[in-house]
């Protein structure tokens, strides 16, 4: 680590790096706090140290039939009359409330509901819905209005805000891992950043991935003189570099953790989530995972001819429910459930009235589902109004960008101004994440130096006494200080030469107002920082 590096970063790029929720240690390493003026420091400290939070996006390809997923029991008569050949039998529906229930095969999801780990947002779509799979998928992925052909993705833009120069300079010591991973052979539009770079990598199976990636160093500045060929070569080399760079960390993360719950077999979604759980538990700092399940385009034979709670759609929902439940049980056993939220979406719902082939044609609004311990359980919105349709389709209750804004704000701690940029406009939010679920990953905060280790502060957030630990493997001149969110010095806990050994200090926060503080450890020429959140 270099000492005294404030001049390394231009002011402008430094500020750019601070927008959004960025890990504090990443920003402060080696940069003397005094070198920056108030507003910059202020900006820094207002971000939340939440880089341990993981969002799992479950994409249901083909247009999931929302009305047979979340069944409007309070309007059962209308529901039954409009889709008599595929209506789910009333008394078989698993109730979320007296008014609303879910498909009988979704037993696992129902358990999660009773444990208050599930949220349903009703009637999500966008104005002027598009009925083409491809266009509507693009709209959802890009997070833009239906009349705009946006070629970047909503989550890609968010991640790009946090990792501004990506992929230049990545991976690095602070983000050694892929920023996002899609469990597929290709990365989708959702993860495309502002410069049309993909913010994620495609990954199928960590074992194969690792085995096959080995390589060749690309020669240096040797591009052909024609532009298109040169650009293509640069692109392939970037993919080559990414394959190489991440293969080792992914393999090691996958090896570090074993699944602690048995996943259902022959379940394409479970196969993907199983790997996600291992990677998260194995310590990857990856923020977003995208998994997919296809087959929801149920124009025909959506339900069995003899029994409407069987058939293609039932099989798919069962896969979804079993896969997500197993994943939830697994991350709970692995001790990471506090920092993982799962969200489902599909490009559209289906027509309210069924067709005569026991299926449904393309429609519009449909429910989204959230799962996880941090999820604010409940149902947002009302049962769809099936008497007041638009060309046979349900009307919008929530714009999908409202839900995106809610997730960015409540789960990733993005600021309103940043969200406005990311989603090309302001959208009111709904409560999908519980309040006060601030968590600071303990593993992440462990910092290593040449001959020292800075342990995570515990507890964090802290109410009364914070325990600050570090280990010296050689004698150091040590300074342990605390600064507030304006960069003002709050306390010096240690300022002396210390022999090697394990040190522990109890710091009393009773006199401090709630907020984020920075704990700075200076050891000879090296420096390390941790955020400490005081919450009373």
């Amino acid at each position: 680590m270099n000492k005294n590096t404030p001049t390394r970063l231009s002011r402008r790029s430094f500020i750019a790096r601070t927008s959004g929720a960025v890990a504090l240690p990443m920003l402060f390493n080696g940069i003397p706090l005094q070198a920056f003026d108030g507003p910059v420091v202020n900006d820094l400290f207002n971000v939340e140290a939440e880089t341990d939070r993981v969002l799992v996006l479950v994409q249901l390809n083909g247009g999931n039939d929302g009305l047979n997923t979340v069944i409007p029991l309070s309007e059962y008569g209308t529901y039954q009359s409009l889709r008599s050949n595929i209506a789910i039998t009333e008394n078989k529906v698993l109730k979320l409330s007296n008014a609303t229930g879910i498909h009988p095969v979704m037993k696992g999801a129902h358990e999660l509901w009773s444990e208050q780990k599930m949220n349903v947002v009703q009637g999500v779509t966008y104005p002027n819905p598009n009925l083409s799979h491809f266009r509507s998928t693009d709209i959802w992925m890009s997070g833009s209005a239906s009349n705009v052909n946006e070629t970047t993705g909503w989550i890609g833009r968010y991640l790009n805000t946090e990792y501004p120069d990506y992929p230049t300079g990545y991976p690095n010591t602070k983000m050694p891992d892929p920023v996002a991973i899609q469990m597929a052979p290709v990365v989708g539009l959702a993860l495309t950043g502002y410069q049309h770079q993909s913010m994620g990598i495609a990954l199928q199976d960590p074992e194969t991935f690792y085995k096959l990636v080995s390589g060749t160093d690309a020669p240096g500045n040797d591009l052909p003189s024609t532009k298109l060929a040169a650009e293509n070569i640069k692109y392939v080399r970037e993919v080559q570099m990414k394959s190489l760079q991440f293969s080792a960390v992914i393999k090691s993360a996958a090896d570090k953790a074993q699944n602690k719950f048995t996943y259902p077999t022959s379940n394409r979604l479970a196969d993907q989530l199983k790997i996600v759980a291992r990677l998260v538990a194995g310590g990857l700092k990856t923020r977003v995972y995208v998994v997919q399940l296809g087959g929801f385009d149920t124009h025909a034979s959506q339900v069995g001819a003899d029994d409407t709670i069987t058939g293609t759609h039932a099989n798919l929902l069962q896969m979804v429910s079993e896969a997500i439940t197993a994943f939830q049980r697994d991350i709970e056993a692995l001790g990471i459930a506090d920092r993982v939220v799962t969200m489902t979406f599909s490009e559209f719902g289906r027509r309210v009235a069924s067709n005569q082939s026991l299926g449904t044609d393309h429609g519009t609004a449909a429910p989204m589902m959230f799962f996880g311990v941090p999820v604010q359980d409940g149902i947002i919105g009302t049962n769809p109004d099936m008497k007041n349709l638009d060309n046979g389709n349900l009307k919008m209750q929530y714009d999908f960008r409202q839900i995106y804004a809610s997730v960015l704000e409540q789960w990733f701690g993005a600021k309103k101004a940043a969200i406005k940029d990311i989603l090309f406009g302001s959208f009111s939010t709904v409560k999908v994440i519980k309040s006060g679920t601030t968590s600071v990953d303990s593993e992440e905060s462990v910092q290593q130096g040449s001959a020292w280790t800075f342990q995570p502060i515990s507890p964090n957030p802290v109410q009364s006494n914070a325990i600050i630990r570090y280990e010296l493997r050689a004698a150091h001149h040590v300074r342990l200080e605390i600064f507030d969110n304006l960069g003002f010095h709050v306390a010096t806990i240690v300022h002396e030469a210390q022999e090697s050994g394990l040190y522990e200090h109890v710091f009393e926060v009773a006199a401090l107002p709630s907020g984020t503080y920075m704990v700075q450890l200076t050891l000879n020429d090296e420096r390390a920082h941790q955020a400490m959140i005081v919450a009373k």
Partner: protein
Amino acid sequence: MAMLDPYRGQWTRREAAHLMRRACFGVTLEQLDKVVVDGVSKTVDALFTPVKAPAPPLNPTDNSKWIPDPGQVFTKTVVSSDRNDPTTSTAYDLTKGPQYYNGLTKIWWTSHMMTHAPSIQEKLTLFWSNHFATEMSVVQNGIFSWELLAFMRANAFGSFKSMARRVTLDAAMLRYLNGNVNTKGSPNENYGRELQELFSIGKGPEISQGDYTTYTEQDVRAAAKVLTGWRDFGTRDLVLTANDRDFRDNEPRNPPLFADNPNVVFVATNHDTTDKQFSVRYGNRVIKGRSTPQGAVQEIDEMLDMIFEQNATSEYIVKKLYIWFVNSDITDEVRTKVVEPLAKDLRSNGWNVGPVLKKLLSSEHFFDVNLRGCQLRSPADLVIGLGRAFPSWTLITDQTLVGRYFQGFTTALGAQQMDLVEPSSVAGFEAYYQAPDYYRMWLTTATLPLRNGFTDALLTNNNALGRKPIVDTVAFVGKLSGSEDSLGMIEQINEVLFAAPFVESTVMMLAEEILMNGGRYYEWATLWNAYKANPTNANFNAVRTPLDRLFRYLFRTAEYQLG
């Protein structure tokens, strides 16, 4: 000089290789040198000469037929294995399931793509199977999928409009896009939508809700009604039950209409006989409802006439052909000087794509140096291309290993995400429509390592070849001229196998750091000359090891991924 003028520029192995890579995946060195001698015009003419496809695949267990002869259907479900009588042969063993037969089709197709004489036919067949996309795993009938593919091959450079008509009434397509359950009073819009959105006129910008410039939601509904009443023979399950036979007999097919397409039946009671009102996008056309099979076909023909009367339809297909064979970036200049003139040709020549493509592939624009390497190789370009450039299948002596050899290439295609007739959706493979990345969609951190693994494997000994490598580097280099000069040799390899030239420093780096493993480039001459003078095992291995190392590296370079 107009962009579509016949190309008159430099004509060397490099230009010839560009044409053959784009038109037929690749060729051997001998074939390439013939192209250099023949010149552009003669070569392009030859590329459009129909190639007779080998006989369809047989049941590997007893060499019986499982694909009926053209125009025939299997009518017995009891296995009789009378392979001399195509009308009674029932060698399509239902208990094996469609995946088994689809697998045979894929391996057959891979081998044909790899072994056929230089022709554009197979690359065009692949184009059509991507354009009029179906997924074999959804169709679930090996015979239907085979017959659709065979039709596309036979008409590869024929009329786009005839193909659209036949595909509309194709058994595999009726299954794939639910035409088989599209009935009066309960229209299923799936095919009616994709016919317009993806197969013919193409979707324009949505200028108001449900109005996609070229057509509207109303047209989707109207088209679905026109298309009611058709279904495949033996729909829904694979077992040809007694009911299916009765059904077919009661509703006889009309041979003059569907001589080549025997698996489609019309059910009059399912056809919507009302008049179909199209939107202002089609001039508020009304297609009169009819009740006979001939009338229902007439409705479809009138609808196709209506769609094909729009200039957008010819421009849409020319754009797709342009993206397939030339470049994904359709600039204003390309649109006005290439796409629109070719679309006009297509409309005026009776929708035959052959002449249009000939003009494109012979043009100044196609050979524009600035467009070389603007594509990235698709899995087929890579896998089939290497199979064609290094035709080591000719060396297989044990016939039982032939299938396994081509199966390996088929598997590689699937692993690299180009499973034949299994696109990711009805829109076909993403690399041909997903802006702005297009061909780059093929290459990701998941698929690039697989490509590297595949090319590495070509250089190791292969059992089917009697423990010889598929890419025999020594033999290949031996056919170049002056191979003792390492720099010249590398330049020649580049010219033949790469879309973009290496700069001088790369050639030197390859010669010294890779080929000679840190030695000097001129030391190669000693090794090569020793081998030529006295091809002992030791002398052979002394050149094989460095050459294998060089090719392994070359196939792994980013440059090699350019197509």
